[in-house]
């Protein structure tokens, strides 16, 4: 968003870290949160990423104070808040439904938290104006909520969530109701806004691309447990297990065989020569479709790359990229994605074509089989 020099950036709101320990929430026999430990660093943009029912929203709602966990501790800085009612937690929140008050104008919505805090009318008006400028809605303060587009409502919800300078900002899939183009634009804007406000932000989404775009760190959550916590780069390049590899980005997983002497094979391809970890487990090779390249089998140095050969089973043109499935021995389908420049012969693949695909050894990802590790 625009770098309007409003008072938000004057440092009046210092960010707070969040410490979560042993947080557990059961619905009947099912664990929505299973003894979750999480440290959210001061000022970082942390995304909770997981499929629906994974517990990510339950975790966010517990931080906001809207549900009562069965056990655990949540601290904002040094303050324990597990028993603090939501209206005393002083965290900003953007709801999936925006939750704008329909009987108030845009400005009244944004002024609501300021009035509750007894801030004088003049300062309230000034801060509402500044917040509107920050979200690029100057001059729309008098509008009714119903007169706004989805994108504008989203911005009002955002302005209302940070106008009272909370030290923690929570967002529950705030962009899910927007169309793709606007969503991608808002992702960048939200990222800039976060940099501008410097507030500790916990963001919930089921959209892995959104998570990769915006986050300092991503928490992958599944069945109420935190599966992996890392930077977008590491989550994508070094997924901890099959669930993460599958949920984030596209991937093909091929089973590996261990020969007992530290060598891992996929069929007759030597994948790894010096594998030291637990030999009793089963391992998989994860291949990102865009890391594969068309290869001439004889020209490739087998020290540097592995070459898979097979038959094209499907080929689809998708605009900026094309996507193909290559069948290996009619048993494994290898997903393959490549750019679509006009000159490339890659554009004219057809089902039934014989192809060889290369994978650089530096792009090899090996994970244990099964979702839990």
């Amino acid at each position: 968003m625009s770098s309007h020099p409003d008072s938000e950036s004057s440092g009046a709101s210092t960010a707070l870290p969040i410490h979560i320990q042993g947080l557990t929430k059961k619905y009947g026999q099912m664990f929505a949160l299973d003894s979750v430990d999480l440290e959210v660093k001061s000022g970082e943009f942390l995304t909770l990423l997981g499929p629906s029912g994974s517990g990510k929203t339950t975790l966010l709602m517990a931080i906001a104070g809207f549900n009562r966990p069965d056990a655990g501790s949540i601290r904002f800085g040094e303050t324990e808040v597990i028993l603090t009612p939501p209206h005393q937690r002083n965290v900003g929140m953007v709801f999936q439904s925006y939750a704008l008050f329909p009987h108030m104008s845009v400005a009244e919505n944004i002024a609501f938290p300021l009035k509750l805090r007894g801030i004088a009318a003049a300062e309230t008006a000034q801060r509402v104006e500044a917040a509107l400028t920050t979200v690029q809605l100057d001059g729309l303060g008098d509008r009714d909520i119903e007169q706004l587009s989805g994108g504008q409502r989203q911005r009002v919800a955002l302005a209302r969530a940070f106008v009272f300078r909370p030290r923690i900002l929570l967002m529950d899939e705030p962009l899910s109701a927007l169309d793709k183009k606007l969503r991608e634009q808002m992702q960048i804007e939200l990222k800039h806004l976060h940099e501008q406000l410097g507030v500790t932000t916990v963001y919930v989404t089921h959209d892995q691309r959104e998570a990769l775009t915006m986050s300092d760190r991503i928490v992958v959550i599944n069945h109420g447990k935190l599966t992996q916590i890392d930077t977008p780069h590491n989550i994508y390049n070094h997924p901890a297990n099959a669930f993460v590899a599958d949920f984030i980005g596209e991937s093909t997983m091929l089973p590996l065989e261990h020969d007992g002497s530290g060598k891992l094979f996929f069929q007759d391809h030597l994948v790894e020569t010096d594998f030291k970890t637990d030999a009793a487990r089963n391992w998989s090779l994860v291949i990102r479709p865009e890391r594969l390249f068309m290869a001439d089998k004889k020209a490739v140095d087998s020290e540097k790359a592995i070459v898979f050969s097979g038959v094209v089973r499907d080929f689809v043109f998708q605009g900026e990229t094309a996507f193909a499935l290559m069948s290996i021995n009619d048993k494994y389908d290898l997903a393959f994605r490549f750019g679509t420049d006009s000159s490339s012969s890659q554009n004219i693949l057809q089902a039934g074509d014989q192809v060889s695909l290369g994978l650089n050894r530096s792009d090899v990802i090996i994970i244990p089989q099964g979702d839990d590790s």
Partner: protein
Amino acid sequence: MSASTASKTEGINEKLLRIQGIREQRLLLSLATPAVLAIVAIIVIPVGWLFYLSFTGSNGHLSLENYQRMIEYKSYARVFVTTFQVSILTTLICILIGYPLAYFLAMLPQRLAGFFMLAVLLPFWTSLLVRTYAWLVLLQKNGILNDFAMSVGLWDTPVKLVHNLTGTLIGMAHIMLPFLVLPLYGSMRKIQRDLMHAAANLGASPVQSFWKIYFPLSMSGMVAGSLIVFVLCLGFYVTPAVLGGGRVVMVATQITAILENQYNWGAASALGVVLLIATLVILYAATKLMKLDAALFGKH
């Protein structure tokens, strides 16, 4: 742009499509005919007849005597005052009982709310007369309520709970309650729970959330329900007649009395006309006020 330039010449099947459109409109209109005829037969003609009768004097000629009488005799004014007093009080009692009830129902999970709603609606489906006489049994001097109250020592001598304003209000409030609760419940159900979460998140205590968010958003249902109750009360006959025991004379009771005692259709019609016009004026004023509400509280 390109479509408007092509309008000179007739497009393919343009005429046929236009004819089909007109035919569909006529079909829809013909579907509404029975209802229109029914309204004319049941409402327009009788009300017109009512107006005509009210302007007919005892000699059979056009006259204003029925209206003059209403101004001259104080008893008529008293009847109207009683009618409005009872209607306003009944509406207020319904709001006081109905708002918490509707709120309770709206807070329940849908299925449980359906069950309790049935409890609200069940009396609604039994005969008005039965319910009114049931109240008579409960409230009379040696009735269940008095017996119980005296046995637990709430009061020593029987309290007069019926054949007066108290009895009338108890009976009417009971009968009118669903008319308030239903629209109120409807508007409360429409209030997203996220809004209350948002209010709390922004720093509003539960009491503040209620008065600043929930209450204004439930206003539309409350105004609609109150209007229905009030207007129904204005013309209510059975319950005030039975539970008022002749001491609470409302317009409808008075109309019956005039017809039974004097067989004066003109006088009775004039009362009906005044009540009808008063009701319409109130409805009109209320919708104007609702617009004011819309300006104050938003369009909900």
